[in-house]
């Protein structure tokens, strides 16, 4: 007869409270028992769920349920990098001639990192882009083929590639590439970056009427890209 492992024994296993020998016995049974495995799954889910939610901590000497600080490992450097890019971009905006639109390098943020997590191809492909080496970035991004049936990844690769093309002085090619993309596959912030790259490309290919339209639209929007567009309008006045 197959005697199931008790719920509390499984809780002890999940909490790491069993000895090595006990662990072996319990997991040995669970491996071949669908019911026990499902119960362990539920317990592990409870535990990981508790870890994911707000956690108690002492604040001013009292136990309070504090929301965890999110994404410190990725966001802080990404935010610093984005801030540096913004400061540099604004600085360049100030010193540049009115008609020359400065290069725009899409920040490599935590969101971009997710593209590097399944395979390493994107890491290499973005290395030159991150170093602002436009020509090398074009080659590397062209050589990188994401999973063929993943529209979000390939679209994002193409947005970076279009940006690299524009910054390499090949604005027409960049523009052509951008206009072939369906940006709806991307989260909002990427669509914003892509529209700014398109604006730069339009300006550099002397399609000023279209560029003005894109800029006006962007300037009406809130957020980083809206701020950027409004600053650009100020510059052009």
């Amino acid at each position, binding site marked *: 007869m197959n005697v199931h492992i008790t719920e509390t024994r499984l809780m002890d296993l999940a*909490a790491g409270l069993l*000895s090595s020998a006990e662990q072996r016995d319990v997991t040995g049974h669970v*491996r071949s028992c669908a019911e026990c495995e499902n119960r362990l799954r*539920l317990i592990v889910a409870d535990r990981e*769920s508790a*870890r994911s939610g707000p956690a108690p901590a002492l604040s001013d000497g009292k136990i309070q349920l504090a929301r965890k600080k999110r994404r410190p490992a990725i966001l802080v450097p990404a935010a610093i990098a984005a801030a540096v890019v913004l400061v540099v971009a604004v600085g360049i905006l100030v010193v540049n001639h009115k008609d020359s639109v400065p290069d725009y390098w899409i920040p490599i943020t935590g969101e971009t990192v997710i593209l590097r997590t399944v395979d390493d191809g994107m890491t290499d492909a973005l290395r030159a882009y991150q170093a602002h080496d436009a020509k090398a970035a074009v080659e590397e991004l062209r050589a990188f083929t994401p*999973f063929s049936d993943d529209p979000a990844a390939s679209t994002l690769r193409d947005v970076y590639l279009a940006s690299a093309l524009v910054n390499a002085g090949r604005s027409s090619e960049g523009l052509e590439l951008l206009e072939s993309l369906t940006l709806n596959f991307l989260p909002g912030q990427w669509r914003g970056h892509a529209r700014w790259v398109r604006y730069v490309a339009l300006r550099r290919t002397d399609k000023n009427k279209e560029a003005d339209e894109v800029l006006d639209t962007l300037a009406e929007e809130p957020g980083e890209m809206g701020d950027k567009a409004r600053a650009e309008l100020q510059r052009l006045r």
Partner: protein
Amino acid sequence: MSDPSPIEDISGWKWPGRLTDLCESWKRTTTDRERNRLLSEMWLLLNVGLTYYIRAHGKAYGHVDPEEARDIASEKAMVFLHRLESGSDPEGPTSPARICAYVSTLARNGLVDTLRKQGRKRDFAQKFESAIATRGSEAEANLLQDRFIQAICDCVSQLSEPARMVWFLRAFLDMPSKKISSHPSIKMSAAGVDMLLSRTRRALGSCMNQKGLNAEDAPTGTFVALWELLRGNMSEPKSNDDQ
């Protein structure tokens, strides 16, 4: 079902003993750092313990879904901790039996309040057993089991750490993207989780297909094998040999 009643012999249960030790340590400790460390461990034990009792009481009072049970557990775990903090414990030293009785009472009260708020009637038909639907004993006889588990572990090992964690938390623990995004070993936005999940599923599907298997056909034992593979990234439970 193995543990039929919340009121039962708790000898052999380790988590109440561990919780008792942590409560006693809390009373002796004065530094915030050490107290925060104790809080982290108590928090996990309490949440899992409370959820266990909520499910157990659910047999009599009415079923709540796993997410509701976790919400109740989280609320009542704070009640437990605040009582510990206030030192308002007139009944003498803490013991595993008293801890269990108190946790059980908190769970029952939380469950009854929730059911009352929801205006639910007793639901004897939907037992706890339904929450843990079995996958069928025929899986145990699946000749492909070892091959499948070896293959999935191999494919999962090829993924990056965030990818395998995100996939495991969703595929096996049914955690929503928002919750996964705030898991301490993930730390990315919910949109990022969705995107990574989509890519990971494709990568795993492709890897398993190359091995002539379907990633969706996980037999019994798959969860345990993957949990053992990934547990270092989760709660980091260790062997208790040295305790």
